[in-house]
């Protein structure tokens, strides 16, 4: 298997993860979706120097990993391509922001370093939360939930098709890189001179296939509604989960847990 085929295979595996069973899988998709959105918003709202406040936010994803039986390793493995990009966002902060914020013995920590770490953590936390949502909720149920929440048909269909087409595109990419490398032995990757035509081909081929896939959905009665998704009722447990988690996030955001713990110990 080449790199692309593996990527494609992994993507299909998300469906398998999502089909698992655990208390988290069993929650209503809308409850999970809203909780995840609240988590991401709260996480992003932390001040850029508030590293100490942000760190406890890791508790929620960690808890979800435990309860849903999803492996942390799988998560980071699947995110290995986007993770560095997200981490790179704050990389230059230490060079621009040199005001000393913290003095640890002889080591002085600048504001830039703190804000870099904060940004990186924010990125990682949000990625983990999104991954957990996708790994515990089938895409169709998620789309059905979005429709229930009155998100317009067009947007939901776009989301669904993007999810499906990313698979188609990586598949085409796999076939093309294989065909290329067979005729360019010993060459690593694709030579820059071939990129233009390669990308053009990829786009055309995946568009053709995407068109066929969409036709196949239309021919089987798809009218941008998700009659086929699992329509379970929204139960009291779902509401409880959503409210409890959201309250904890807001609590963590507004109460300085670390300082609170620190001050009780000191006292």
């Amino acid at each position, binding site marked *: 298997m080449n790199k692309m085929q593996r990527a494609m*295979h992994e993507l*299909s595996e998300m469906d398998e993860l999502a089909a698992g069973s655990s208390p988290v899988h069993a929650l209503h998709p809308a409850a999970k979706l809203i909780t995840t959105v609240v988590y991401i918003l709260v996480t992003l709202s932390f001040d850029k120097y508030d590293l100490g406040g942000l760190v406890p936010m890791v508790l929620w994803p960690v808890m979800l990993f435990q309860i849903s039986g999803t492996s942390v390793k799988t998560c980071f493995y699947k995110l290995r391509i986007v993770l560095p990009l997200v981490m790179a966002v704050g990389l230059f902060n230490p060079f621009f922001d040199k005001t000393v914020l913290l003095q640890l013995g002889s080591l002085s920590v600048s504001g830039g370093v703190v804000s870099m770490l904060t940004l990186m953590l924010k990125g990682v936390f949000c990625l983990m939360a999104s991954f957990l949502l996708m790994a515990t909720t089938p895409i169709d149920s998620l789309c059905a939930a979005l429709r229930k929440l009155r998100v317009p048909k067009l947007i939901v269909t776009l989301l669904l098709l993007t999810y499906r087409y990313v698979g188609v595109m990586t598949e085409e990419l796999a076939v093309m890189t294989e065909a290329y490398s067979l005729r360019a032995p010993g060459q690593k990757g694709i030579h820059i001179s071939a990129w233009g035509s390669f990308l053009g081909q990829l786009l055309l081929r995946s568009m053709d296939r995407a068109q*066929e896939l969409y036709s196949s959905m239309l021919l089987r009665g798809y009218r941008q509604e998700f*009659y*086929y998704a699992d329509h379970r009722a929204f139960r009291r447990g779902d509401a409880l989960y959503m409210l409890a988690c959201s309250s904890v996030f807001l609590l963590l955001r507004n109460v300085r847990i670390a300082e609170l713990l620190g001050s009780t110990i000191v006292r």
Partner: protein
Amino acid sequence: MIEFQHVSFAYEKDRPVLKDVSFRIEKGEAVGLIGANGAGKSTVMKLLLGLAEGEGRILVDGTEVRRDTLPEIRRKLGFVLQNSDNQMFMPTVYEDMVFAPLNYGLSREEADARADAVLKRLHLEDLKNRYNHKISGGEKRMAAIATVLAMEPEAVLMDEPTSALDPYNRRIVINTVRELEMTKLITSHDLDMILDTCGRVILLSEGRVAAEGPAGEILRDRTLLESNRMELPLSLAGRPY
């Protein structure tokens, strides 16, 4: 059941793909649509399903294929795509099978029952909960046929159902197709398969109906086939050795 009346079509201006095509298929008939690569076979199916619009009239059960009649028309026709990878878009075979029935308003239990009945009939019970990306090409073709049968269509359209299959899987598909009693329209250049499954044949050549008649006659006509870039089916070729 299916009728083309003077249908013409072009994807791009000045490059007609179908030119004044007319034919009729009666209810319960099995018709083979043959022709060389690029003859326009797949295009005929696209027009019939309303995936493309041309000139002339196309009727299904007396209803004209138009934008406003599409839902009704599509419900009657089950289409097996040439590339099964593009046909199956749900994670598992079972989910793909209940997709259409649920969209058409059946309850989960009814859809389940249908899927089970079709799987049993095609001896594919093992495939039910398999993941679409983890089954072989032959299994995938059979699964694609199963998803279409679960719609309980009045006619099935199959675009090259035996392409890219090994002899063993090809035989399974042929036997399955033979046993379907509904109206069938099958495109292929696998003429042995057409001979095995169809009573009548329409030969398409450069966008026109070049010949039409009983499969046994047309497929035996070496001159006709060769002048249209095809060869006699192996089973009729008569072995020289």
